[in-house]
């Protein structure tokens, strides 16, 4: 635990990726493989389930540290992170241990979730008595299910690839899917030759970049395949070993949530892997994404919701056919294979993403203008000669989205962020006018520079009207231009509308709150 906590601190302290990779590599090389396996598991963002909630942690830490709960809250507000606040408040430990990470995980962490409160409290007290500040921070992050450190999966892969002298793509693939950390698993991860991969293992998703320039700069039109860019859930359907696995991009198995897909895709030929988008689709019509969210939100999939919001898997790529990995073949060869695979099965639930035909970039640009009417976000442009790369490869797949919808709105609530933005007010709620009052319509977190964030933070502190727990209402003075991708009616929102991917486009210092938009502007966009 000590050396893992030291790794966490080292990763937290440096902003240089080369140093992060070096620190991970050094840890993974020195740690026993059981420890290294768990370290990789945590570093790539997999989490054990939450064993202790923030509320319990706060109560027990206040008790152990001899501070009132209000004082804990004051501290929390200053620190911005509950696990760190708890680590700083506790009295120093009376002893130290050299227990390795995997023993901590197996003996202390994993059993914690199944225990009753009294036993959990006793376990925490025992743990605090042998962990120093750094170790406590990591321990608290793990038990509250909030473990996160500033490394991307790509950096973890880079460290493992260096360690095993492997291609990053090989490591990336081995990290996909369902696996349990163990010494054998870690050795397999960095071994020169891999055992037969498990039947369920998906391929790393190829991700697209946003197109910034003009498409004509990409070269001749016929070198590129165009498809509609749908707004759904990216998914990979894996048919192997007589079983069907549906993976989300977050590498969660989501097949159970889409029984209709399981039924339809069960007829795919053995050894098939498809990449595509899950979409709410009814009677041949695309439904708004909000409908799919409504379905995802349900614990139990009632017959009603299945009937109201059926899904379609819109396949756009074939990654494996007949048990052969097709990823090195160009898109121009993969596309006909995809069409052949689905030809006998295509129906309401399985479809092939249509290719948008347009002879010239100009024609395509004209079609793109219809995107909103079609319920799509724009176009995807894929290089016909390109293989299916690993991760965010630049240059082969482009998102050519419509310009966002825009309104000017007033900052009305602020809350402090987390991570690098902890203890800085960075999460904002924006409002527009309705009958002479400001009605909140969205939250947005991104879009400002660090300098602007600091300035807004200072504004929030100086103009707080009221505090509601961590949220502060502020004098409505600052106006921002808010962009978003889509808009739908919503009964859950005070404003009556829900927007998709809201973000701050810029700070309108030139505008006064009275210049902000009226709810009518949003209503008008509903029809757009």
């Amino acid at each position, binding site marked *: 635990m000590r050396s893992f906590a030291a790794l966490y601190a080292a990763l937290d302290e440096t902003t240089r990726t080369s140093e992060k990779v070096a620190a991970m590599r050094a840890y993974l090389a020195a740690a026993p493989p059981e420890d290294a396996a768990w370290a990789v598991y945590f570093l790539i963002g997999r989490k054990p389930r939450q064993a202790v909630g923030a509320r319990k942690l706060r109560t027990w830490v206040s008790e152990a540290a001899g501070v009132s709960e*209000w004082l804990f809250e004051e501290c929390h507000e200053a620190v911005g992170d509950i696990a760190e606040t708890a680590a700083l408040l506790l009295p120093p430990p009376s002893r130290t241990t050299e227990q390795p990470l995997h023993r901590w995980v197996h003996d202390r962490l994993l059993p914690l979730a199944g225990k009753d409160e009294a036993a959990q409290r006793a376990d925490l007290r025992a743990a605090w008595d042998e962990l120093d500040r750094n170790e406590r921070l990591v321990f608290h992050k793990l038990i509250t299910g909030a473990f996160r450190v500033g490394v991307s999966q790509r950096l973890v892969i880079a460290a493992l690839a260096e360690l095993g002298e492997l291609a990053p793509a090989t490591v990336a693939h081995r990290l996909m899917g369902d696996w349990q950390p163990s010494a054998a698993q870690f050795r397999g991860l960095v071994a020169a030759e891999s055992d037969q991969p498990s039947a369920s293992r998906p391929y790393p998703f190829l991700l697209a970049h946003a197109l910034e320039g003009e498409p004509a700069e990409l070269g001749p039109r016929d070198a590129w395949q165009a498809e509609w860019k749908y707004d759904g859930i990216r998914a990979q359907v894996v048919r192997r070993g007589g079983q069907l696995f549906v993976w989300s991009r977050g590498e969660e198995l989501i097949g159970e949530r889409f029984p209709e897909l399981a039924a339809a895709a069960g007829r795919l030929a053995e050894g098939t892997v498809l990449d595509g988008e899950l979409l709410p689709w009814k009677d041949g019509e695309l439904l708004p994404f909000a409908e799919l969210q409504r379905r995802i939100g349900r614990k139990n999939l009632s017959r009603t919701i299945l009937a109201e919001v059926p899904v379609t898997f819109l396949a756009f790529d074939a990654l494996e056919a007949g048990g052969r990995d097709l990823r090195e073949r160009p898109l121009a060869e993969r596309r006909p294979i995809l069409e052949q695979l689905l030809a006998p099965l295509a129906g309401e639930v399985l479809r092939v993403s249509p290719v948008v035909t347009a002879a010239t970039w100009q024609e395509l640009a004209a079609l793109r203008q219809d995107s909103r009417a079609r319920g799509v976000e724009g176009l995807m442009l894929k290089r016909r000669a390109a293989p299916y790369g690993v991760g965010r490869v630049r240059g082969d797949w482009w998102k050519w989205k419509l310009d966002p919808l825009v309104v000017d709105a007033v900052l009305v609530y602020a809350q402090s962020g987390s991570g690098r933005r902890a203890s800085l007010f960075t999460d904002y709620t924006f409002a527009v006018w309705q009958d002479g009052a400001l009605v909140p319509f969205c939250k947005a977190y991104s879009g400002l520079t660090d300098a602007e964030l600091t300035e807004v933070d200072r504004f929030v502190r100086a103009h707080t009207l009221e505090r509601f727990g961590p949220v502060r209402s502020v004098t409505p003075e600052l106006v921002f231009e808010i962009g978003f991708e889509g808009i739908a009616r919503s009964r859950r929102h005070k404003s009556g509308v829900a927007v998709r991917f809201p973000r701050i486009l810029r700070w309108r210092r030139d505008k006064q709150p009275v210049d902000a938009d009226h709810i009518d502007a949003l209503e008008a966009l509903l029809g757009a």
Partner: protein
Amino acid sequence: MRDPLVELTERGLYCRAGDFYIDPWQPVDRAVVTHAHSDHAIGECAHYLTAAPGRDLLAMRVGDGAAIQPLAYGEAIVHHGVGVSLHPAGHILGSAQVRLEHHGEVWVVSGDYKLSPDPTCAAFEAVRCHCFISESTFGLPIFRWAPPAATMHDVAAWWRANQQSGRTSLLLCYALGKAQRLLAGLDPEIGPIYVHGAVERCNAVYRAGGVRLPAAPPVLEAARSAEFERALILAPPSAQGTPWTRRFKRPVRGFASGWMQIRGTRRRKVVDRGFVLSDHADWPELLAAIAGTGAERVLVTHGYAQALARHLCERGLDAQPLATRFVGEAGGEEVLPAPEPTDASDPPEDEPAEDELSDMSEPPASEETAP
């Protein structure tokens, strides 16, 4: 009930009986100044009274022509019937607590203070009083400093590690107080030490005052061939990102401040390493100092005044926050790049730390969250 001996006015803390101010924030006729940091020592007052060891630092801040009366620690004078004496506060060279006595009633104004050891200034002295006006820059129980020797050990290890990778150690800190404390604790055997001009001006005053500091020439006086790769450079935070730092190849940046206790502030500074070293009292020191005065009444100024006062009330003291305009240890805020200062203005371009003071209202009891 008689008038309070010290009250809060538009211009600062005011002793009506003696007709003088303590650390005023606007020019006044008579000012007692606890120490020479810019949030406590304002220029253009007609008369200053300050502790003798801090006389020259105050002159550097408010100008050589100012009328500054030095007073030895512990020596008392009487002004309009109010006894005034100054006692070491342990914050920086010449920092003092102000003891006021009038008709048998004793008040002490702490200024900024710390209890942990510092070789560059006299140690904090507990002064018994009826009412204690205490700072609270780090008045939350999350602030508990490690022994300074342990922190200095970390600084030395960091410097050596940077030398091994051939990179300059650029350590950012207050030019007045913190820089000299660091310097006094550094081992010059490790390698050459250089300082920013603002630090050098303070060093000169410290040295003239008899404080022993290792050799640390200003960067601008270093030879062209100077081995900055092996060197440690002390500079104020405002130097970060200025052309001045470009002479160092890929420096590793450290920051020494009590705020480094919180990961969020360190990350926002975008420095490579934070060292938790403060010239202010941490939570246990604040509680110990307050208990040491025997005061029944405590007025809490700049910092987490509201939280500390509430905690003291829970412990049975009569405590209240006092909304002064002192800054304490700047550093909770972003460091804005600024050109190399031409004078020794110290926590200078640094904006005030979190402005808890303008925000004294209680949060609503309601747990309801905003939509």
